[in-house]
């Protein structure tokens, strides 16, 4: 009985073992079948859980059954389960990697953009074209040792005219239509008054620039009643016309490029003697002649000269020992030429469509 019974039990157990190996093969097949249906890493995760979860997973369950297996079969069984587990893990990892790669690819594709669509920017404003130009001019002269003086907008007759060798009844007063505020006070018609203030208050030698607003009673397409000039003044020993030419040569090369040259030609200002107009070789065509230079190859940019000795003397400077040079630049003119602006009024209308364009800060 005992033997029978044992055989019975053995048979049963053996059947169980056989059944076990069938189950392993069944699970393997189940995984293989299931895997082919999966289409996302999430599904892979969920499916994987059905088998691999240590508590609820089908392979986990098998591990739990281990203790019910006959000791002599246990090793065999354990080996089979472990092999299945290893095999399943590999399958799931492979699949997971594949799914993730596919999903990443899909995500990238779903985020495809039209790179030609407009940019998003934070708007930055601009300095006024006059300020930009003024800064460029100052940069050049500051490097030559010029300091910057800020002229008054309201001047008196003495500084604006008389001290500059333009007494009442002087023909040169006709060159400028003056706005008067009272018999003695007026709106500066030129930044030249700054020359006198500088010579009266500064120690010699002087190298100064005076960019400022000036006013003339002119209002038409090409004239604005207010515009900007920049005065330059050097007073030192032995300053000559050669220094003026040399300094301006250097200025135009810095401002308009190394190949630019200057040309001096006689002119007249009451406060300089001799006086010159200074032309630069056209920076558009290089001097061949074009629309900008009206075919002459030259562009007039400033007036200059040797400081009239009467002006030095008016400021108490010994004209035997000291001499000077002076120049005056129309800032709007420089800006108009540089940026191709054809109407001086545009500078003062604050039209954002204009201000946005001149971005040369």
């Amino acid at each position, binding site marked *: 009985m005992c033997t029978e019974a044992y055989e019975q039990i053995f048979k049963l157990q053996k059947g169980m073992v056989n059944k076990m190996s069938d189950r392993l093969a069944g699970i393997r097949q189940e995984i293989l079948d299931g895997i082919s249906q999966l289409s996302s890493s999430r599904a892979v995760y969920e499916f994987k859980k059905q088998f691999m979860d240590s508590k609820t997973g089908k392979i986990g369950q098998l591990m739990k059954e281990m203790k019910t297996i006959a000791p002599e079969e246990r090793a065999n069984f354990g080996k089979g389960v472990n092999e299945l587990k290893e095999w399943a893990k590999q399958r799931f990892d492979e699949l997971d990697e594949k799914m993730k790669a596919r999903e990443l690819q899909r995500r990238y594709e779903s985020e495809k953009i039209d790179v030609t669509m407009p940019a998003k920017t*934070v708007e*930055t*404003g*601009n300095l*006024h074209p*006059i*300020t930009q130009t003024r*800064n460029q001019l100052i940069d050049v002269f500051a490097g030559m*040792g*010029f*300091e*910057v003086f*800020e002229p*008054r*907008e*309201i001047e008196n007759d003495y500084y604006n005219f008389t001290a500059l060798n333009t007494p009442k009844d002087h*023909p*040169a007063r*006709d060159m400028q239509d003056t*706005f*008067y*505020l*009272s018999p003695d*006070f007026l*709106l500066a018609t030129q930044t030249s008054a700054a020359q006198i203030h500088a010579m009266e208050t500064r120690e010699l*030698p002087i*190298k100064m620039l005076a960019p400022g*607003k000036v*006013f003339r*009673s002119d209002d038409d397409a090409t004239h604005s*009643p207010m515009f900007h000039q920049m005065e330059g003044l050097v007073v030192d*020993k*032995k*300053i*000559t016309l*050669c*220094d003026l*030419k040399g*300094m301006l040569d*250097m200025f135009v090369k810095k401002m308009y490029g190394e190949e630019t040259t200057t*040309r*001096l*030609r*006689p*002119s*007249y200002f009451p406060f300089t*003697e*001799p006086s*010159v107009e200074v032309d630069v070789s056209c920076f558009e065509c290089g001097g061949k002649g074009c629309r900008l230079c009206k075919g002459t190859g030259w562009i007039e940019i400033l007036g200059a000269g*040797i400081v009239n*000795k009467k002006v030095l003397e008016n400021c108490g400077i010994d004209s035997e020992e000291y*001499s000077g040079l002076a120049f005056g630049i129309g800032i709007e003119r420089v800006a108009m030429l540089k940026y191709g602006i054809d109407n001086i009024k545009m500078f003062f*209308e*604050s*039209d*954002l*469509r204009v*201000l*946005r364009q001149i971005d040369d*800060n």
Partner: protein
Amino acid sequence: MLVPLSWLKEYVEIDITPQELEKKLFNCGFEVEELSEVGKEISNVVVGLVEECEPIPETHLHVCRVNAGVHGTFQVCCGADNVRTGGKFPLALAGATVFMTAKDHKTVEGVMTIKKGKLRGYESEGMLCSGVELGVTENMFPGAGYNGLLELPQDAEAGTDVKPLLGLDDWIFDISITPNRSDCQSIVGIAREVAAALDKEFKMPSLEYTETDVKKEGFQVRVEASELCPRYIAHYVYDVKIGESPLWMKRRLALVGMDSISNIVDITNYVMKEMGQPMHAFDCDYLEGNAICVRRAAEGEKIVTLDAQEYTLNPDNLVICDGAKPVALAGVMGGLNSEIRETTTEVMFESAKFARDNIRKTSRALGKHSDASARYEKGVDEYSVYHAMKRALHLIEELGCGKVSSTHEDANTGNSLEPREMKVSIAKVNRVLGIDVPTDEILRIMRNLQFAPSAAGDELTLQVPAYREDMEDYPDVAEEVIRMYGYEHVIPAFMPAAHVTMGGLSRRQNKEMRLKRALCSTGAYECVHYSFFSPSDLELLRLAEDAPERNAIRLLNPINEELSLMRTTLAASMLNAIARNQKRGNLEGRLFELGRIFIPKQLPLTDYPEERQKLCVGVFGTDESFFTLKGIAEKVAENLFASFSYRETKKSFLHPYQAAAVICEGEEVGYLGKVAYEVAEWLDLRVDAYIMELDMEILARWYDRDPSFTPLARFPGESRDLALVMGKGVTCGQVEDVIRESCSYIRDIRLFDVYEGEQIPEDKKSMAFTVDFTPRDEAFGADTVDGFVKKILKNLKKQLDIELRS
């Protein structure tokens, strides 16, 4: 000034092309604004001799055979009534260009090219021309005014170019003369310069004439206002025969844009253009009292000028009177009462110098301008006064239109007409130029310029002609030398003898530029507006009668009312700029201006007013608010390393509940706020605008401040969020102030939420803040910050009745 080449050539030999002459003039200081060829539209027109001329039946046309010399003989159809066999006329050959006229044969409508063609079946190989078609007037060539063919002289050779014959080969130089060279406001003056520039001799026009023994007995010239008339010359001419001027004179006047009137009047105009001296001729029949008196007009005195206009005068106006009444407005225009007529037989010529400033003032005050006044305003010299009279008298003789008497009155103040001697150092002349011009060159140049120079060692002696009033000292000589020697001789140097100086911007200038750039970084664009504004801008800003902004400096001579006051605020210009942008469709934007306002110490000005630097910022657009503008204010503060606080304020042009005074560390420095709806309506604004104005004179005190470094905290900080419930009137600033004062460890307080509604009592609101605490010398303990919070809450309760939200 217009200078015909043909006229110039009379006084100086010119052997270069007009273009070369233009360059020469340019190089020595006379810019030619325009160089135009007189007959440039006309080409290929030659003298044609009509050899046969047959009428074409049933038309007004003739078919002609025209001999054009070397060019051949052509068949031409012609509709003019004066075409005839044996006549010589201008013939435009095929390919020629002439003026095209309207149906009236008088009005020029453009330029046309002549082509061969057929008229009524007759071949026509060219065109016979009228004066109009060649641009020639009666004043340039007799017969040119005839409405038909222009008949040429019989001695004209067939086939030759008609342009020299008709004066169409001439050039006109329009020369701009600098104000120091009024002596060059004449053909003769330019001729002197051209002669010097070309190394040629200058030929003075003839001044010869013979005075007869005839005198105008008892005639007197009296100058009562010699300060306005330093020299007045009168000369009596009799047996005058008024008539037409000769062709050459008419033609020259026509070339410089003057009409021919009569021989006597033409002489005065001719001399003005030639010698640069205005002249006048009075009809002696209408001069009472046998005298000329130059005096200031009496108050209310009247004169009727040549053009039949009446003017009421005052003592600022100078008049020429006879023994009884004004007969001319000095230097401006003659009187109608003494004008030259066809019946004139005796003439009193006037040549005078009048003070230029006085002529200008009179001319402007009366709104009366003439060729003479324009010339006087540039200044005349007594040398020319004297020589112009001689030239006029010579022309009287040359034209045979009168006899020159010996009555010559010269009322003057004793100024010499002789050259004055001037000595200068050659070394000083060269010192101005920075180069050594050889003495021989200096002598050549000064000789060419009529200075009769001589040199002895370093001393240059010049005989300065009386017309060169501009020559005063060695720099003037330097200028004369270099403009003739050539500026190309100036060698560039770079102040080899000068001292080294420190250049660049001052601290203030640098800080201002830094501030401007910071404003740009907020998206604002810099503007520059006129320093003047309009009285209506004061109304736009709704300023009270006693507002300080109303104390603005007024221009005495503004261009118009809109530009008649000096700005006392930048706000109006900014508002107008915003309105302009909105009108042009720019519906959002940020603008700023750094500019000056003008505060008078007293009016009218007797001292410099204060020029005060202000910053104005304007923003507009649907995304803008009080707080976006406040953000820009904070940017300014940050840039100055300063801190701003804000207090409700009222401003006439701002929203009454969205306006704040800006306070910089205790000092009020400006305002900011939303533009009031009344102002927005006035300006037709389409979107809301906000404006800020700060006083940069005060803020400039912060320019001295530099950024400073605070060492990084060694211990971690802590933050607490506090949701607080308070009365609706409590402001964020008040809460922040109390929190800050309660604890010295606070680094930052930030409002992050404002709430009104459910869960909050109806008369209350909730504000939630994040407060950052930073430890200093040691780390915070476990409940240090709780202690701070407790104290904060206690103070909030006590001072503002604020509770922690439950």
